[in-house]
């Protein structure tokens, strides 16, 4: 009986078996790349907002402190988004006729909240607490990026678990003196590691990588 398969089939089959491993690996790599890409994470993608609020103007140019608006950042898990009243402390006096600010005035007038689009989002099974990070010397811009340069706000980091763990495993690479936590102009010093180790000790920063730190 004649052979069904030619001799060369052996080669093809070998190649495809070994090749399959590469294809699977390549696919895996592609998926991994995709999940970390801005397409999925929206990192560096500025979001449309009902009012085109500019951190660049308010923080970078006017120098308003983060806590003027994000009032609960030192007390609560949630940093807080300012009520319309906070906007109106200034905007009842300045730019009172700017059409751009009409939604703010309308909100105050009609007692209807402004519905902002969340920029930095975590999945619901992650329980992040702002207050403890701020208290331990993690600067706002460490996670949120250069807010003072954002005309419209975007997320500067993926906020994926591997990114969180980067700091949770090696906090000395990221912590800064507490007095600079809310500074947007703070620059990482050249001796960060040395300073970081000192601060980790001083602030009693723990290496918290167990699951229930964030998940429960």
């Amino acid at each position: 009986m004649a052979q069904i398969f030619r001799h060369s089939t052996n080669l093809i089959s070998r190649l495809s078996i070994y090749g399959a491993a590469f294809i699977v690996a390549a696919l895996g790599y592609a998926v991994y790349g995709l999940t970390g890409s801005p397409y999925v994470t929206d990192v560096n993608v500025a979001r449309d907002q009902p009012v085109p609020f500019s951190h660049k103007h308010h923080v970078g140019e006017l120098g308003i402190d983060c806590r003027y608006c994000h009032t609960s950042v030192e007390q609560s898990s949630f940093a807080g988004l300012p009520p319309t009243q906070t906007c109106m402390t200034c905007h009842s006096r300045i730019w009172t006729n700017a059409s751009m600010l009409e939604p703010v005035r309308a909100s105050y007038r009609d007692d209807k909240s402004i519905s902002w689009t969340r920029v930095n989002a975590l999945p619901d099974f992650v329980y992040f607490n702002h207050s403890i990070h701020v208290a331990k010397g993690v600067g706002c811009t460490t996670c949120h990026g250069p807010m003072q340069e954002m005309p419209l706000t975007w997320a500067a980091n993926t906020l994926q678990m591997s990114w969180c763990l980067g700091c949770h495993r090696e906090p000395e690479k990221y912590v800064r003196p507490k007095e600079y936590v809310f500074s947007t102009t703070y620059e990482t010093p050249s001796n960060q590691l040395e300073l970081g180790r000192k601060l980790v000790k001083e602030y009693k920063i723990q290496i918290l990588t167990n699951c229930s730190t964030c998940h429960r």
Partner: protein
Amino acid sequence: MSDVFKILGERQPVKRDAERRGHDEHEEKFIPVAAVSERPLDFAAMRARLASSQGKRFWQSLEELAGTPEYAAFVAHEFPHDPANDAVADDTTSSKLPRRDILKLMAASAALSGLSACTKLPVEKIVPYVRAPEEIIPGKPLFYATSMPRARGAMGLLVESHMGRPTKVEGNLEHPGSLGSTDIFAQASVLTLYDPDRSQVVVREGRISDWSAFLTAVANARGDWQTSKGAGLRILSDASTSPTLGAQMKALLAMYPEAKWYVHEACGPANARDGAKLAFGRGVNCVYRLAQADVILSLDADFLYDGPRSVRYAREFADRRRITGPQSSMNRLYVLESTPSNTGAMADHRLPVRCREIDGFARALAAALGVGGASGAAAPEGLPAKWIEALVRDLQKHRGAGLIVAGDSQPPSVHALAHAMNAALGNAGKTVVYTDAIEVTPDTDGMAELASDIDAGAVTTLVILGSNPTYTAATDVGFSQKFGKVPLRIHFGLYRDETAELCHWHVPEAHFLESWSDARGYDGTIGIVQPLIAPLYDGKSIHEMVSVLMGKPGNSAHDIVRDYWKGQRPAKQTDKQFEDFWETTLHDGVMAGSALPARALPVSLDFGKLPASGNSGGLEVVFRPDPTIGDGRYANNGWLQELPKPLTKITWDNAVMLAPATAERLASQMGLKGLANGDLVELGLEGRKITGPLWVMPGHAKDSVTVYLGYGRKRAGRVGNSVGFNVYPLRASHAMTSGTNLLISRAGGKQVLATTQHHHAIDRGGEKVEEESVAAFRREVVRVGTLGDYRSDPNFAKDPEEATSRDLTLYPNYDYSKGYQWGMTIDLNSCTGCGACVVACQSENNIPVVGKEQVIAGRDMQWIRVDNYFRGNLDNPETYYEPVPCQQCENAPCEGVCPVGATVHSPEGLNEMVYNRCVGTRYCSNNCPYKVRRFNFELYSDWTTQSLFGLRNPNVTVRSRGVMEKCTYCVQRINSAKIESEKQDRGVRDGEIVTACEAVCPSRAIVFGNINDPESRVSKLKGQSRNYSLVADLNTRPRTTYLARLRNPNPEIGES
């Protein structure tokens, strides 16, 4: 699927005899629906078995004692209903899947599960305030003091509020009726608040109407009331302790002098009130000071469980049983009761006595104590004479430090005798204090009078405030039939219930968490009821309703309550001082110094005029409010329906409970081989008949039958409708708490009762291990001794091999000597088995309700369960409770078997459960020797009902289908306390972290803390010689340990 599990099962370190037997015998057979046996119970065999173990054996149920194959099969199966052979959930899946298909499905799901990680987060909105309220910090809860109004005394609460949503109820430390703890009803009240079945609109004759139309209708009727001085107006309400309502009631009756206000409570204190009138000539409020009592006798009183006062009483009782070392002393509790109760389970001496014979006992006891005028009555036959003599001596020895408590089911004569005996023994004023009544509403049940008024055509308008008389009224009153004759019927209540259905108008009531009011606690202390949230459905408060009847519809409940107290202020108080007083009262939750003063009341009891003992012939029937849904008012609360009843562990049902001996006798009378649990029987009392399933209750009094009220509702809501059987039709006004000459016959058929008694059974070694051996002792999950045993050998409960076996492990020991190490102790000497921890945990941790079918399948989800063990003979066994949450093993068997690392250990000794990693293999649960893991077989959490979203604790994930869950020592509370302490640069203080179960526990049986801190309460308790761990021979090294139970029997009687 069972094949797969069989293979895995053989790899388990713990092998159960029953497990293997079960697999062999039931390899291809259908797994029984529940462990409840189909065949009649063989009591003779059980007795023989108990006799051979010399009374030392612990047992959980009659089925276990009988060793039925159904029981063996049920406990052998980890998950009695695997989806692969699931006959309960879905018939289409009941055919077994071939192994190849399983493998294919597993491969496909593994492949797909990887893809599920590639989701994009949905776009979310953040909606800040326009003007932010000053106190609210987003992300931080606020706590407000309020009170839960209840007929027997309000309970002070602190309610946790997240962004305006009340989510969790805690006790108010400052309130004497709470002392920081609560009971199941207070815990579950927050679910009722969000219940989507609550009445949401004003209804007129079955059609949706509105409040203004109702106001118009009342305004029209008011014209008549004013001219007739309210002659045809009748108001029927629940009993209330609200001083404001009392004042309103007075004002209303002054406005309409011919009107009448009646009160109806289905399970009210009518007997206690009449008894007080016999003894003192007036109604009183009895405040027991259990903390001062060395010897307590309960005459059918379940004071450690029944009613809101039980919270305070359980604390005082447990405080007198706290053991710090062999020098500690304990009080002694004697209980006579017909129905086994939680109080009976705590007793040092318990006698099952028919409800109607306790009267005779009380007379004999009074005579023996020489209470003036008591004739030489003899105790009913069958009671051990030695017992009574010893009791008399014990009571006389502790004059002024003894206490006799009579229960609601007892006739007025028993209450009067208890007062007389307490007075004669010098206990009055010391262990029992009398004050004026706390109720402001009339103290007589007005149903009979109201019915005759209706018959006479005297009633033109009937306003029902909160009550549900067409469901709860005694049958002979015929209220439901007469009710229809009233020309205008108005109902006001939380639900559009059986009574509302028959009314012209129904107005939704505001829940107490939505309204302003005030209420007196058990000793008269006043607490202000302040709302946590605006009414969800525009409900009105009772004060607003009464105000409407008086023609003042504009008054808000807040103004009514505040104005009342402003009117009560001392003459010299300025407005500013009143403001301060009001603010302080709201903040503290209690009005300072408002407890009612004690009154010295002489007993003037004429024994000759004491009503004769009631007829006690034939089989008696005892009516009791259901332990978890009360008189039926909590029927639509899923947490309470699914909470196992303390002794039977039945959920979602009531049953006809009777003693094993009675079951035997009845079976032979009926000519049957025997009766089995779940057999439907018909009860007949004076021609009235009901049908319900049978439950043989060890320790029940013979020739007595107990049925719980509150079930069989028709208009409770989707949870409570058509659950159980309605007992009210059997009740008559002369037989409100018990009746005699009950006829019982077999109705034919069976009903499966969803009892959790066999669920999550810990392998106690069964018959493999020899009794008296060390191996048997190490498997003994309940350890009990007498106070005498403990004093002679303080180490009686200690595990002899614990220290040596500690390092017998293949794994390197983890160093737990640093940092916080969390641990818990549960003192079995304090636990009264009330189940408050179960509901508190359910509330704190967003635990779903699964329903009766799923409970039958062994899928109840409560993270902490209260196991129930019996010891001794069938007729009067000792009963022990054991709450079992996750034991947080240091060598956790569950962790090693998780293929995805979804359950791992934290450096602080927590056995963590990571829901977002869990893929639902259930290997962990299979490997857990304590059976504390719960699996979401279905999508149990309600992800669609809007109103329930408000209920959820935002700090705990709401789990989805296919995820394992379990207790984590309330890790959300641990984390939040740690964060606060870190921010303040200090350590977590002892007592700063309180788990939900610990916070709620009325008897303070549960203590949580850092075991590395030698000064912490938990360390000190763990240092006691009574400390032991469950199933220690497996060397799991649990962080949750137990403190052995001690009994304090009277040496003259000995161990009964």
